[in-house]
C-alpha cells in the first residue's frame, strides 16, 4: 500500500483494475499521488489514515456500493470533493440525491473519454503548486501510453497495432498539453474573471463619459482646476484598471490621455493648442474603441435594453378608423409591433421591410379577388410562406366557412370587435406562427447569457427556450423538439460534454445540431468539443453576429429542419416524409382534443393522358400550377404535400362540408387556367378529389389516407 501519511493524495475507488490503471496513469503523469482502493472497506481505511484531496468513486462495487460509501463518509463529517462515476446516466432523482444530499462535485458516465475526463475533473483536482513534483512523473513511457489502449479494448476495439499505439501516444501528448493549459487557467478562476470583467465592462461607459466631460470642461475654461484634476485622476485609474481587466486599447488610450494632461500642466502657451487637439483626438479614439470592446462583453448595452424582447410584427390592413383605434392598445401594451396599412401595396411594402408574423385583413374595404392576389404575393415573400391571416368581416362582407378557409383565414372575426377579443386573436395567431419557426434550446446555468441569446435570436425568427437544469435535458428535448441546442460546457455537477453524450445516446437526437459554448477558443478546447460530439462551438464571450451566423449555418444543415420543411421542387409543397410527420401530428392533436381533421386527395383528371399527348414537361407544368395554387390558398396551418401524381391536403379543425366548399372554389379556379399545348392550342384541366373526415370515416392518420383514396377512386 502506498504511503499516504505525509502527502496530499487522490482516492480512486473502483473494482475494475483496467480502469484504475487508466485513471491512475493519467493522474500520476500530472504529478498527483493516487491511492487505489478496490472496495469501500479499503477506501474507508485509507481515509482514516489521512483525508484525501479528492475522491473518484465508482457506483457499482463489490459489497457496499459507491453511493452508500459516499453517504457514510458525509455522515462521518468528511467534506472532501467527490467525482462520481456510473455505468449509466443517472436520472433527475439520483442526480439530486448525489448533488444536494451527498454534495458530489461532478457526475460522470462510463466509459470515460480520457482527454475529456481530465478536463472535467481538472476543476476539482488539488492545485499543482501544492503537489511535490515526483521524479519521473513528467515523462510518459510507452507502456503507460498503452493504458488508453486497454480501455479501447474494453469498448470492443482491438487497438494493439503499431498505428494504434502511435495514435494513443499522440493522444497522450495532447492530453498533457491540455492539462498544462488547464492548470494555467483553472476554469473556476476563468469564470470568476469573466463575471468580474462583465461587471467592469458595464461600468466602463460611465467612467469614460465622466472622463470626457471633465476634459471638455477643463478645455473650456483654463481656470477649472477641479475638472482638470478629476480628468487626470480618472485617466490614471482607467489606465490601471481597464488594462488589468484585459481592455488593452482603453488602457492604452487612458494612459496616453493621462500623459498628455500631465504635460499640459507644465507646458507654455505655444504647445498648448497642439496638446489639446492631440488630447481630443485620443479621447475620441478611446471612446470608439471602448464601444466596440464593451459590446463584445456586454453585447446588449445600447440598441436593445437588457431583457426586453423584440416584439412580433403584426400588419393590419384596414381603413376603418374604429378598427385602428382598437389596434393601438396592442402596441402600447407591448403585445406586438403593429403596422397599420390602408392599401395592399402599403401592407406589402411593410411586409418586405419587416417580416410579418400575423396579417389582419379587413374585408369590408376590399373585394375578395384582391385578397387572393395579396395573399399569394405575401406568401411568395422570403420566410413568409407560413404567415397566418386573420379576416375581419362585417354585415356587408359575410363569409361562408368554406370561403374563409379558401381565402386562407386562420381566424374570422366579426366587426365590431372588442380589444380583448382582438388581443386574444393576436396571441393565438402568434403561437400558430411559432410552430413554423426553427427552435433553439439553450442549456446554461447563467441566466444572463440565456436572456442575451433569447434577445438576439428571437428577432431572427427563432423560438428560444432556456434550460438551466441540464439533467432534465432528455425530457425537455422530447417536449420542445429543438432544431439546434446551445450547450454550456461548464455547469454545476455535470459537464456539457456529458449532457451531449446523453443526447447522442437517444436515437431520436443522434442528428440534432449541438453547439458548445466554451470559454476556451484554443485548439484543445475545440478538439474537446468535437470529441464530445458537438457540431460546432462558440467561444465566450459570445458576440451576437457570430451567434446568429453559427446558429443559422447549423440550421441549414439540420436534418430535423429538413425533415419538417423539405419541399418538392416542382410544386413547392411538402415532400412525403415531412408530410407524414406533419399529418400524423395533426391527427394526434385532433384525437387528443376531440377536434376535426379532414384529408383530401387531389387528382388532375387525365394527367397521364396529357403527358402522353403533349409531353411530360407540359404535364408537369399543370402539376406545378396546382401546387402553387394550393400553396397560395388555404390557411397557414393546413398541410399540403405531393405524393406522386397526387396532391394531398390536410385541414385541421374543419368538417368535410366546409372543406368541400373550399375545394369547389379551388376546382373552379384551377379549371379557369389555360395551358398551351406547345402547338398553338390551349387546354384546361379538371380536378378530382376524394375527401375523408376523422371520426366520421376513420380514427387515425393511415385510415384517413385510405378513406380519402377510396373516396377518390370510387368517385
Amino acid at each position, binding site marked *: 500500500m502506498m504511503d499516504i501519511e505525509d502527502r496530499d493524495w487522490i482516492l480512486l475507488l473502483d473494482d475494475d483494475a483496467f480502469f484504475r490503471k487508466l485513471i491512475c496513469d493519467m493522474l500520476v503523469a500530472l504529478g498527483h499521488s493516487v491511492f487505489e482502493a478496490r472496495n469501500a472497506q479499503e477506501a474507508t481505511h485509507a481515509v482514516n489514515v489521512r483525508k484525501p484531496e479528492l475522491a473518484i468513486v465508482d457506483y457499482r462495487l463489490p459489497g457496499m456500493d459507491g453511493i452508500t460509501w459516499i453517504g457514510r463518509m458525509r455522515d462521518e463529517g468528511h467534506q472532501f470533493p467527490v467525482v462520481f462515476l456510473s455505468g449509466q446516466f443517472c436520472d433527475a432523482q439520483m442526480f439530486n440525491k448525489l448533488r444536494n444530499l451527498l454534495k458530489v462535485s461532478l457526475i460522470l458516465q462510463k466509459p470515460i473519454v480520457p482527454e475529456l475526463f481530465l478536463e472535467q475533473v481538472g476543476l476539482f483536482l488539488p*492545485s499543482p*503548486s*501544492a503537489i511535490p513534483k515526483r521524479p519521473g512523473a513528467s515523462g510518459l513511457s510507452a507502456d503507460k501510453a498503452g493504458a488508453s489502449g486497454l480501455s479501447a479494448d474494453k469498448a470492443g476495439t482491438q487497438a494493439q497495432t503499431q498505428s494504434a499505439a502511435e495514435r494513443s501516444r499522440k493522444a497522450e501528448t495532447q492530453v498533457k498539453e491540455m492539462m498544462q493549459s488547464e492548470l*494555467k*487557467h*483553472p476554469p*473556476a*478562476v476563468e469564470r*470568476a*474573471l469573466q463575471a*468580474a470583467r462583465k461587471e*467592469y465592462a458595464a*461600468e466602463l461607459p460611465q467612467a469614460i463619459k465622466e472622463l470626457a466631460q471633465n476634459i471638455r470642461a477643463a478645455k473650456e475654461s483654463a481656470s477649472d482646476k477641479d475638472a482638470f484634476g478629476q480628468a487626470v485622476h480618472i485617466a*490614471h*485609474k482607467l*489606465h*490601471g*484598471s*481597464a*488594462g*488589468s*481587466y*484585459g481592455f*488593452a486599447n482603453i*488602457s492604452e488610450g487612458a*494612459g496616453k490621455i*493621462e500623459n498628455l494632461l500631465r504635460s499640459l500642466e507644465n507646458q507654455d502657451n505655444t504647445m498648448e493648442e497642439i496638446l489639446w487637439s492631440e488630447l481630443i483626438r485620443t479621447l475620441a479614439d478611446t471612446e470608439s474603441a471602448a464601444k466596440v470592446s464593451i459590446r463584445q462583453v456586454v453585447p446588449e448595452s445600447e440598441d436593445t435594453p437588457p431583457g426586453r424582447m423584440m416584439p412580433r410584427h403584426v400588419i393590419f390592413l384596414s381603413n376603418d378608423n374604429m378598427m385602428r383605434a382598437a389596434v393601438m392598445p396592442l402596441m402600447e401594451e407591448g403585445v406586438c409591433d403593429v403596422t397599420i396599412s390602408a392599401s395592399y401595396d402599403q401592407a406589402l411594402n411593410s411586409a418586405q421591410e419587416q417580416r410579418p408574423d400575423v396579417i389582419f385583413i379587413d374585408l369590408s374595404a376590399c373585394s375578395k379577388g384582391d385578397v387572393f392576389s395579396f395573399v399569394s404575393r405575401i406568401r411568395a415573400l422570403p420566410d413568409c410562406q407560413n404567415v397566418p391571416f386573420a379576416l375581419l368581416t362585417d354585415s356587408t362582407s359575410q363569409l361562408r366557412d368554406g370561403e374563409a378557409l379558401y381565402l386562407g383565414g386562420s381566424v374570422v372575426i366579426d366587426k365590431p370587435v372588442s380589444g380583448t377579443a382582438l388581443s386574444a386573436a393576436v396571441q393565438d395567431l402568434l403561437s400558430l406562427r411559432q410552430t413554423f419557426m426553427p427552435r433553439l434550446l439553450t442549456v446554461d446555468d447563467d441566466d444572463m447569457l440565456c436572456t442575451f441569446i433569447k434577445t438576439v435570436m428571437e428577432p431572427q425568427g427563432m423560438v428560444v427556450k432556456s434550460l438551466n437544469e441540464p439533467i432534465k435535458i432528455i425530457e425537455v428535448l422530447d417536449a420542445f423538439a429543438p432544431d439546434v441546442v446551445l450547450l454550456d460546457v461548464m455547469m454545476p455537477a455535470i459537464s456539457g460534454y456529458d449532457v451531449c453524450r446523453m443526447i447522442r445516446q437517444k436515437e431520436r437526437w443522434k442528428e440534432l445540431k449541438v453547439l458548445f459554448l466554451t470559454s476556451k477558443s484554443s485548439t484543445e478546447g475545440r478538439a474537446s468539443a468535437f470529441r464530445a460530439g458537438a457540431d460546432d462551438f462558440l467561444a465566450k464571450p459570445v458576440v451576437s453576429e457570430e451567434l446568429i451566423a453559427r446558429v443559422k449555418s447549423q440550421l441549414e444543415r439540420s436534418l430535423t429542419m429538413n425533415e419538417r420543411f423539405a419541399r418538392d421542387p416542382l410544386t413547392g409543397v411538402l415532400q412525403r416524409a415531412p408530410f407524414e410527420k406533419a399529418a400524423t401530428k395533426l391527427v394526434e392533436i385532433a384525437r387528443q382534443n376531440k377536434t376535426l381533421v379532414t384529408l383530401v386527395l387531389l387528382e388532375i383528371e387525365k394527367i397521364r393522358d396529357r403527358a402522353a399527348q403533349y409531353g411530360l414537361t407540359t404535364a408537369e407544368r399543370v402539376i406545378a400550377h396546382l401546387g402553387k395554387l394550393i400553396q397560395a390558398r388555404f390557411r397557414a396551418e393546413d398541410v399540403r404535400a405531393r405524393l406522386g401524381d397526387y396532391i394531398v391536403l390536410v385541414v385541421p379543425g374543419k368538417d368535410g362540408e366546409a372543406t368541400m366548399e373550399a375545394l369547389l372554389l379551388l376546382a373552379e379556379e384551377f379549371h379557369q387556367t389555360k395551358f398551351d399545348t406547345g402547338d398553338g392550342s390551349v387546354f384546361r384541366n379538371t380536378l378530382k378529389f376524394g375527401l375523408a373526415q376523422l371520426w366520421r370515416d376513420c380514427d387515425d392518420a393511415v385510415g384517413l389516407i385510405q378513406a380519402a383514396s377510396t373516396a377518390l377512386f370510387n368517385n
Partner: protein
Amino acid sequence: MNRVLLVDDDRSIRRIAQITLSEVGHFEVIVATSGAEALKLALEQQPDLVLLDVMMPDMDGFATLIKLQKEPKTAAIPVIFMTASVSQDEQKHYRTLGVRGVILKPFDPMTLPDQIKQILDNEPGEEPVDGATIKS
C-alpha cells in the same frame, strides 16, 4: 507566505486582484481601501505581505509605507508597490525607500501571483522584477 494585505482605493482593481490572488495564488487576501485602513489591518492581522497602491487620496502609498515602517509591529512586513508606469530611476528610488518590488499597472491578473512570488524570491537588493504583461 499565505496572507496578503491588498490596499487600493479602486474597487475594480481590488476585485480582480482578489480573484486571482486567492484562486490562482492561493493567498488569503485581506482588503483595505485606504492607507489608514491598511495601517489598522496590518497591525491587527499581521499579513505576510502588503500589496500597496501608490496613488491614493488622503494618505498615499508613500505615507502609508513610512508609517508601516515606523511601527515596530509592522516594520518587518515586506511591501510591494502597485503603480502605473514609472521610469527605472523612479523604481530604483522606491527601493531605497525599502520597498521589496514594484508591480506595474495594468497587470495581468493571471500572472499577478507569480509576479509576487518572483519578487519575494529575489533577495532584497537585487534588481526588481518589472515584467508586467498584458494579455490581449
